[in-house]
């Protein structure tokens, strides 16, 4: 078992005082606090070599959970075991097993060349020469590090910095890799490059990957499993493909019409009980449930009513599904858990 989390909870205590000087003075005399439960009784287990997306809306508690798993932040209650080590009791031992990338931070030293940062990491993790050489060669090839490895981190573009950071987190062959928004602010090609690489590390080295992201493409491409957290609580924990299968009932047909037909929407809605929307005068979209109709039936019906010049079938994708989860339109029941 790679990661075992039981009843993990983090309560932040925030000083609360009325605005202005008066409020501040009052706070000195009689401090008042409000409590914020950022992570609320979270439990899950992750097997060796799994790739898990840990997602949820802003402020859901993702980063807070990751910080606790890495041993940076102490839990208010609950238990964490990463590779059999309790990160709160043995921070250093845990640190040897993990690699961490926080999209908003860097682990490179700002004012020294990237190459020097790597060398520092070699010392810190006591990486054997051969491993270090091989990894540097591999990462340089994949990420094109050669172009900027001599520069200080301060002088790198965001994309370059993120690639260097990801490389830095993997120099010591960690068993577990935490990625907190690793693709934030990157262009499409760099994102794709990073995704491919993470997938490769996960497959070839069996590195357990835990990733948070707001880019659902990251999740589809990298992760076999999705854990959704909202307001500190886990609301979904399911295999990525199952999530799609289970909830992706909605397909759509978008039809471009030869002649605008104001009556068409009403007719379709009444005859077939479809959810039809008008994109513009010539285009309509009909959404339907795959248990009720096939795409052919829907297209056929529209064809009977009017002349069609073009047709597109809209397949359900994970984005729509996860958006629904976020909007609490979908709640995963117990039996559908992994």
């Amino acid at each position: 078992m790679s990661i075992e989390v039981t009843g993990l909870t983090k309560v932040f205590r925030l000083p609360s005082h009325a605005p202005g000087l008066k409020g501040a003075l009052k706070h000195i005399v009689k401090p008042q606090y409000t409590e914020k439960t950022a992570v609320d009784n979270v439990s899950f287990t992750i097997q060796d070599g799994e790739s898990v997306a840990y997602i949820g809306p802003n402020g859901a508690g993702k980063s807070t959970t990751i910080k606790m798993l890495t041993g940076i932040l102490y839990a208010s209650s609950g238990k964490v075991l990463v590779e059999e080590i309790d990160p709160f009791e043995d921070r250093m031992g845990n640190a040897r097993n993990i690699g961490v990338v926080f999209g908003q931070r860097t682990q490179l030293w700002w004012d020294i060349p990237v190459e020097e940062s790597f060398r520092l990491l070699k010392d810190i993790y006591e990486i054997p020469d051969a491993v270090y050489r091989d990894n540097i060669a591999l990462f340089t090839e994949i990420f094109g590090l050669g172009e900027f490895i001599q520069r200080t981190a301060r002088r790198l573009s965001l994309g370059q910095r993120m690639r260097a950071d990801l490389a830095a987190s993997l120099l010591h062959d960690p068993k577990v890799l935490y990625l907190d928004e690793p693709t934030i602010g990157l262009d499409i090609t760099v994102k794709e490059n990073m995704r491919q690489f993470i997938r490769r590390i996960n497959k070839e080295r069996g590195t357990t990957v835990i990733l948070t992201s707001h880019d659902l493409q990251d999740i589809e491409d990298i992760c076999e499993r999705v854990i959704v957290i909202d307001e500190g609580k886990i609301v979904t924990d399911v295999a990525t493909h199952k999530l799609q299968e289970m909830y992706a009932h909605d397909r759509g047909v978008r039809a471009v019409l030869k002649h605008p037909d104001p009556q068409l929407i009403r007719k379709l809605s009444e005859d077939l009980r479809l959810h039809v929307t008008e994109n513009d005068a010539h285009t309509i979209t009909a959404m339907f449930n795959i248990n009720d109709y096939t795409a052919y039936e829907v297209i056929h019906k529209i064809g009977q009513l009017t002349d069609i010049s073009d047709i597109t079938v809209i397949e359900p994708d994970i984005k729509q599904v996860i958006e629904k989860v976020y909007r609490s339109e979908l709640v995963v029941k117990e039996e559908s858990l992994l």
Partner: protein
Amino acid sequence: MNILKYRGFTRCAISEKINYRSRLLLNLAQSGIEAAATFFLWRTLFNEQSVINGYTWNNMVFYIMIAFIMNATLGYGTESNISNKVLSGSIAMDLAKPLSFQHMCFAETIGSSLVEGILAIITGGGIALLLGDITQVFALSYFGLFLISFVLAFTIKFLISYFAGLCCFFTSNGYGVIYLRQVITDVFSGALLPLSFYPLWFQKLSNALPFQSIVYLPTQIFLGRIAVSAAWKLLGVQLLWVIFLWWFDRLFFHLAVRKITIHGG
């Protein structure tokens, strides 16, 4: 545990200090102006008298020199480096690594202080040699003792600055913390005034605190104001402070880390 794995931090801190020359020189100027003010103050006082409280003018020149060197070594730039790690939250990345934060900061501090120290020794020492006669105050037989005392003084100063940096876990006013640390150190270390100039109760208080180990004790050895056997005793006092503060800081860090939340993300 492998101490050598921290040597890279020292190396990088040295090159970083050299790359940021302007900041380095500004900080040196700050200590220099302080030293100059003290210097001219004493100059006026010594116009009236040739010996004050057992110090001749020549003694005082070298006293000010050591105080200046000690102030400039591990200066504001180096000290704020520690509190910045805490305040910016970049400490999170350090904690996610198999590193002792204390060892890492010490290794970095050694590096940047080395640059600051050498610069201060060249400038401060050079000026003092022009103004005073070193042969009258410094005996070569004390050189080894002074060197050890200087290293211990530096370590104590680091441990106090490190503690101040850790206090930033509990306040966001890093500048205030450092300023307070500097004022207390200036007064109790003897950087402003040799401790023998203060009233007796104050001297007793200073004796019980670690600050006098930073400036006063090394100067007493440098100026040869005490016998060799007494000097060894002072080194013992300094060493005890190093050991005590080292473990005190470690304990404080472990307690603080449990309480703190790292900002951002």
